[in-house]
C-alpha cells in the first residue's frame, strides 16, 4: 500500500509540476499511473483481502487451512508476481489495457496463483467441521473462482502477444474485465470480510440470512454484466449499452440488501464498532460502499455521463470504491485479525486511530477536489473550451489533490509500521 499510494502521489505531483522528475523514463506519468493502479489493486488490495480471507474461512469452518505450505508458496508466488508487475510496467512492458496491462507471462502466473488459492480454499471447505457454510465463505470462494475465470478471459490469455481482441469487441471485453476486478474480486472479498468482522465485533448474530442469500446472488447476476457502462459514448452496440445501464441501476438492490443487513446487525451497538479499530475501518468501508454504489448507477445514466465521462469525476469515483470501500475493509480486516493471530493487542491503537483519520480526511478531501475538477472539466468541454484552456483552471485543484495524497501516503506508512510492530516486536498486553 505504501508504494502503491506513493506512486499515486508522485503522479499527482507530476500533474502539477510536469518537469520535476523530467526525463526519467520509468518515472513518467504514463508509467507511474499504470504502476499505481496495478500496485494498489494487485499489490495491496488483492493480497490484503485474500490474507484476511485465508484467516476467516478456516475459522468459520472450525478447521485448519488445507495446506499451510501451499499457502506460503502462494504468498511467495504472489510477491514474485507483484515485483514482476512493478518492474515490467516501469520499463515499459505493457499491454496498454487498463488494469490488464501486465504482460502475458505474468497473466499466466496470476491465473495459476488463483487456481492454487481456489484449491486450497475448496479443500479447506471439504475438511470442515462446521456443516453450514457462513455467508463470508460463499463470497470469498465465489470471488476466487470467478476472478480466475474473469482474469483469464479479460486478459485474452489465448492471444499471448497483444493480450487483446481487435476493435470495439476489445473495449467490451476490457471493461467487462475492468469492472469485474471490482465486481467479482475486490467487492466479494471485502463484503465477505465485512460479513465476518461486523457480527464478530458487535457479538451479534447477523440480522438476516435470507438477505445474505438475496444479496449474494443478485450481486453475481448484476455486478458482472454492466461493464459496458464505460462505453456509453462509444460506437458499441446500443442493446449492450441499454443492458449495462439497466443493470447498473439494478446494482442498488444488492448493495442496499448487504448494507441493510450490516447496519441492522450493528443497530444499537455502534459503541462496539468505535472501540475496535479494525471494525471501525470495516464499518467506514461499508459507508463508502453506499456512496460508491449510489454514485455508480447515477453516473451510468447517459445524461449524467455526458458531463462526467473522461473527467476526474470518474477518478474520484474509482478512489471511493478502491480505497474508501475495499481499502478500508482490507486495512480493517488486518487490524481485526492481528490480535487473534498473535494473541496480543495491536502495537499501538493510537497510531491506528491516527492512520484512520489521515486516510479518511485525505480520501474525503480527495473525492471532493477530484469531483470538483471533474465538473470543471465536464462543463468546460460541453461549453467548447479546449484542453489548454482548462489545464490552468484545474491547476490549483491538482495542488490540493497532491497535498491530500500526502495524508494518505502518511497513513499508509504509519499503518505499515504499526502492523510490522504488532507482528514482530510486539511487547503489548495479551489480548
Amino acid at each position, binding site marked *: 500500500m505504501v508504494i502503491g499510494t506513493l506512486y499515486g502521489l508522485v503522479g499527482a505531483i507530476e500533474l502539477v509540476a510536469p518537469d520535476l522528475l523530467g526525463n526519467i523514463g520509468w518515472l513518467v506519468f504514463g508509467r507511474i499511473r499504470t504502476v499505481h493502479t496495478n500496485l494498489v489493486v494487485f499489490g495491496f488490495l488483492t493480497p490484503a483481502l485474500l490474507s484476511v480471507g485465508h484467516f476467516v474461512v478456516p475459522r468459520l469452518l472450525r478447521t485448519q487451512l488445507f495446506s499451510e505450505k501451499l499457502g506460503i508458496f502462494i504468498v511467495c508466488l504472489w510477491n514474485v508476481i507483484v515485483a514482476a508487475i512493478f518492474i515490467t510496467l516501469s520499463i515499459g512492458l505493457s499491454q496498454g489495457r487498463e488494469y490488464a496491462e501486465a504482460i502475458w507471462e505474468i497473466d499466466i502466473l496470476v491465473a495459476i496463483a488463483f487456481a492454487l488459492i481456489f484449491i486450497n480454499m475448496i479443500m479447506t471447505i471439504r475438511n470442515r467441521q462446521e456443516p453450514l457454510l457462513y455467508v463470508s465463505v460463499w463470497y470469498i470462494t465465489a470471488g476466487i473462482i470467478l476472478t480466475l475465470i474473469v482474469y483469464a478471459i479479460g486478459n485474452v490469455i489465448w492471444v499471448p502477444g497483444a493480450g487483446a*481482441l481487435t476493435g470495439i469487441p476489445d473495449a467490451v471485453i476490457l471493461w467487462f474485465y475492468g469492472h469485474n476486478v471490482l465486481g467479482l474480486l475486490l467487492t466479494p472479498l471485502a463484503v465477505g470480510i465485512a460479513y465476518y468482522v461486523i457480527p464478530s465485533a458487535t457479538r451479534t448474530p447477523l440480522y438476516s440470512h435470507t438477505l445474505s442469500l438475496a444479496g449474494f446472488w443478485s450481486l453475481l447476476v448484476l455486478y458482472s454484466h454492466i461493464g459496458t457502462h464505460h462505453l456509453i459514448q462509444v460506437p458499441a452496440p446500443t442493446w449492450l449499452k441499454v443492458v449495462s445501464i439497466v443493470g447498473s441501476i439494478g446494482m442498488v438492490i444488492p448493495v442496499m440488501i448487504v448494507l441493510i443487513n450490516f447496519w441492522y446487525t450493528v443497530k444499537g451497538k455502534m459503541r462496539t464498532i468505535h472501540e475496535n479499530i479494525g471494525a471501525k475501518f470495516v464499518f467506514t468501508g461499508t459507508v463508502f460502499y453506499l456512496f460508491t454504489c449510489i454514485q455508480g448507477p447515477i453516473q451510468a445514466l447517459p445524461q449524467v455521463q455526458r458531463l462526467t465521462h473522461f473527467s*476526474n469525476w470518474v477518478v474520484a469515483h474509482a478512489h471511493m470504491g478502491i480505497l474508501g470501500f475495499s481499502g478500508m475493509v482490507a486495512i480493517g480486516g488486518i487490524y481485526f485479525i492481528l490480535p487473534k493471530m498473535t494473541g496480543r493487542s495491536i502495537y499501538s491503537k493510537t497510531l491506528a486511530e491516527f492512520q484512520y483519520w489521515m486516510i479518511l480526511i485525505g480520501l474525503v478531501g480527495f473525492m471532493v477536489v477530484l469531483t470538483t475538477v471533474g465538473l470543471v472539466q465536464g462543463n468546460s468541454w460541453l461549453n467548447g473550451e479546449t484542453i489548454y484552456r482548462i489545464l490552468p483552471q484545474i491547476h490549483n485543484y491538482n495542488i490540493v489533490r497532491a497535498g491530500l495524497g500526502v495524508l494518505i501516503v502518511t497513513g499508509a506508512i504509519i499503518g505499515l509500521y504499526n502492523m510490522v510492530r504488532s507482528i514482530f516486536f510486539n511487547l503489548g498486553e495479551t489480548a
Partner: protein
Amino acid sequence: MNLKMTPTAVVLGGIVILAVIVFGVVYWPWATRIEQPSAIFRHRSAEEEKGRLIYIANGCVNCHTQSIRLVDWGLGAERIAQAGDYVADRPILLGSVRTGPDLSQEGGEHPDDWHVAHFINPRYTRPNSIMPAWEFLGNEKIRLLTRYVQGLGLKMADRRLERQKFWKKKSIKAYEAGPEKNVQWLHSQVPEGWRKIPNPYPTTKAGLVRGHKIYQDFCIGCHGPVGDGMGLAQPWIYPPPLNFTILKGRGASGGILYYKIMNGITGTAMPYFKRELESQKIWEVGDYIAVNFIDESDADQEPKGIDAAWEP
C-alpha cells in the same frame, strides 16, 4: 429459505451465472461485431505500428482518449467516431481519462517538426501542457511516435499531412528568400479584406496585460519572451518561429496578425488558435505583439466603424 448453500451450489451457481453473462455481454457482441471498415479507414504503415507500440509502452492512453463523442467540440470533433474506424486496433486505445487532448484526428494537425519539439518538451510548443518530457526516448523513438501520431485520423490525417507538406515547401522557400520577401509572402497569403483592417480595440494598459497573459500561455514557447522567435522550441523548428521585430515598417496590420493567429500558417509550426481563443483574446494578444515587439500598433485607428459601447 430452503436454498441450501453447499460448496457445489456456490461454485457451480457462480460459474453458471458467469457463463451466461460471458455469453451474453462478451461473446455475443464479439460474434455480431462490425468488421466493415469505415470510409476513412486504412491500414497503418510499419513505422506507424512501431510508434503505436511506444505509445502503449509509455502509458499515453492514460491521458489521451481516442474516442470522439457526439458532445465534443475540441480537436477532432469534426468526425464522430465509428466502429469501423477501429477495426485494426489491437488493443483498442479508447482511453478513460482526457487529461490531454483527444488524439483521434491529431494526424496532420501540425507538421512533423512541431511534434518533435513537442515531444522533446511539451512546454516548448504548448506552455500550458502538463505532459511529461519524452526526450529520454531518443530521436529514433520520437520519430516513430511522430509517425504514429501523424497517422491518427487515417485517411483524413493523410489529406491534412499532404497539405502540411505542400505548404512546408512554400514556407521554407519564402523564409530562405530573406526577411523582406518572407514578410511579403506571409502578408500575401492573407485575404485582402483582412489586410486592411486595423485592430478595432484601443491600446489600453488592461488590454496589454491580458494580451501578455495569452502570449505567455500560448506563444512564448516558440516566439520567445521578447518576440524574437528564439523560444525554447526554436532549435527543432524549420522554418523557425517568426522574429516579430522584422515586421516593423512592413505593413503588418492588426487584421493580418489576427488572421494569422486565428488560422495559423499550415506547413509551419504556427498552429491555428481559433478553437482556443475567442475574438477579444486574439485582438489583444495581437496588440500586445504589435506594441511590444513590432513597436508599431494600428489599434483604434480608422476605419473602425461605430465605437464599441464599452470603450473608454
